């Protein structure tokens, strides 16, 4: 197995993020995959981005400019 290193960005584990734990992942160059030291997540960059988009979905007003208070 290759030595895990930080990836090009500090991608956090999307499964840990879903329970609001910030856990930076390590990147395995040989497998082109990120993995989490805390839980058992493994996935490539598109998978991380897909799950991050899913995480954002709970913020239904994330793109709404609210001015009426």
């Amino acid at each position: 197995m290759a030595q895990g290193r930080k990836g090009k960005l500090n991608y956090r584990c999307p499964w840990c993020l879903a329970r609001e734990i910030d856990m930076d992942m390590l990147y395995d160059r040989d497998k082109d995959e990120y993995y989490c030291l805390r839980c058992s997540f493994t996935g490539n960059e598109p998978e991380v981005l897909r799950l991050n988009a899913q995480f954002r979905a709970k913020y239904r007003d994330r793109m709404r400019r609210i001015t009426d208070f």
Partner: protein
Amino acid sequence: MSEFYVTIIHRPEMVPEYIQREAQEGKQEDLARSEVIRESLDIFRTQQQVAHDNGLRTTIQMTYASLFNAEVIAIAKEHHDRYGDEIGSTFLGLQCQQFRDKFKSKELAIWLFSMEDKRRIVDEVLGKFYEVFGFYPTSTGSYYMDAELVNYIKSKYPMIKAAVATCWEEGPKAYRNANNSWYTIFDGGPWNPWIPSKRNIHCPASDEADDIGIVAIPHLSRDLMAVFDGPGSYYGTHPQNILRGMVYEGREIPYFKNIVDQYRSMATYNRGYSYNMMYVGPGWMSKQGRWEADYAFLLKSYQDGMAHYGQLKKKGKAQDVTLSEFADIYRQSRPYTRPECTLWKDILYGSRRQQFWYADPWMRFCLDMNQGGAMIDLRPYAARLVRPCGVGTRHLQDASYPFLVQSLYRVGYFTHYAGEGAVKSCKFSYAGEEIDLCTCRTLASYSEEGDTRIVTLDPVNIEFARVTISVQSVFRLTEGTGEIEIVRSIIGTTDPAAEITIDEYITACYGTTEYPEDLTGITLTLQGAAERESIEYAYQCREAQVPDIIVAEAIVPQVETRLTMRTDSDHATGYFREGFAFSPMYTIGLKQTIQGKGELRTWLKVEKAS
């Protein structure tokens, strides 16, 4: 005061933890790594430029490390002369080679040192500041400044009048969010500036004798709903915090402006005054990128945020002030007893949820309209608990101000298995049915009558099998009384002959975390016109009730608090309920049966038990 004040703070941190961590990967520690210092300095310079380009003055809080850097010192002096920026000090960014050599410690948090070390560090940091600039700063700060630390600073450096003194609701949630590695455990303070008590930094001072001598500023202006339920480092006036929380799409972050504008709206609740602060350390704008965002996005988010403040200033809707200037303004027209309050609206999740936050020298509490106005947080400031933190103290890292009610840490309205949760609410019962207002979602409006703040909830319908009633709740908060007056009115009924029982109650505990504390020794007492019942808590499930109640009381010696409920009704019944080990709570309440329409008016009070 009738202004929206904005304070922008920058700190030239020479060895920011995030950048240092990145640069250090795979290498041994080197606090003098030149590329880290160079990058940090570049970011500081960029932050200053972004603020000035938007016409905003800043407060430059010099870190200890930066006091050894001629370039930073020159920038600070130049920007003070040219833009009117304030040169202050901070106890963040202590770590550098000089600190390590002098104090032989890797500790980074001023509040976690022993008291003896705190004194030594204060003298060293402020002494070095004087040596460099020829004067002492008038503002300082850290993520947390305990009362003992501030009392020492004031005793030796009385010119200091403002400090960044805590991070709002940065406690167990922030600790857990950082995979149990971020020791900023200090829930329970005010969310907007306040004058702290000499006894405990979280508590607003009650009078001049209790005044610690500074105006305290929370680190960032935070989303009062999202941060109560989520990580503090996701939702506030810190653009990179918002990136961390992933509250964006593409590269746009309207949420930042929404937070700012909701804070501006607080003028409605606070005699025309509102406030914001932005304080981003250079580590958050690392050239390597951070929180899934590249440097370009980190920078853009900062520029966009600052541009919003700049635009507000240009339109005459904001006034940029330095930390010390703000302290002077705040003190000009702030009676000690004046509360800070706000009816916060959801700006994140797309619900219509509202929460009402209130803080004064007696208490801090939150009402949740999603739960019929239930009180989901209650902190007994009246107790003014002396709770030193740091090495050598009993609580060490736990600098939170204790709660009596925290519904997220201690269940709240019960939806799971057996037992009770900490919440203050009201139940209505009829013919064997019982409905809690916690299940009656509603909205609220705010008004004032002189020195009384009033939160009026929209009526809700409660449907029993044979009768439907319409119920309205009103909370009245009269300045300087330390009491909450609560009116529960049946304003409509389908059966005027039906006898409805109104049960106003509080189920409480105490603590600072999710884990239960020992309730042994708490006393529950009912004092009626003719009868009295009292027990000492021993987890025995005991219950009692007394007619013609005068006062129902819980004394919690562990947090030196006396909690009471009273009513103006002559014929209400008081009761208490002891818990058991699997349900470590206590309840006191007042009940009254009403035929047709009518009301139960009660007062909740927290006092120091001594």
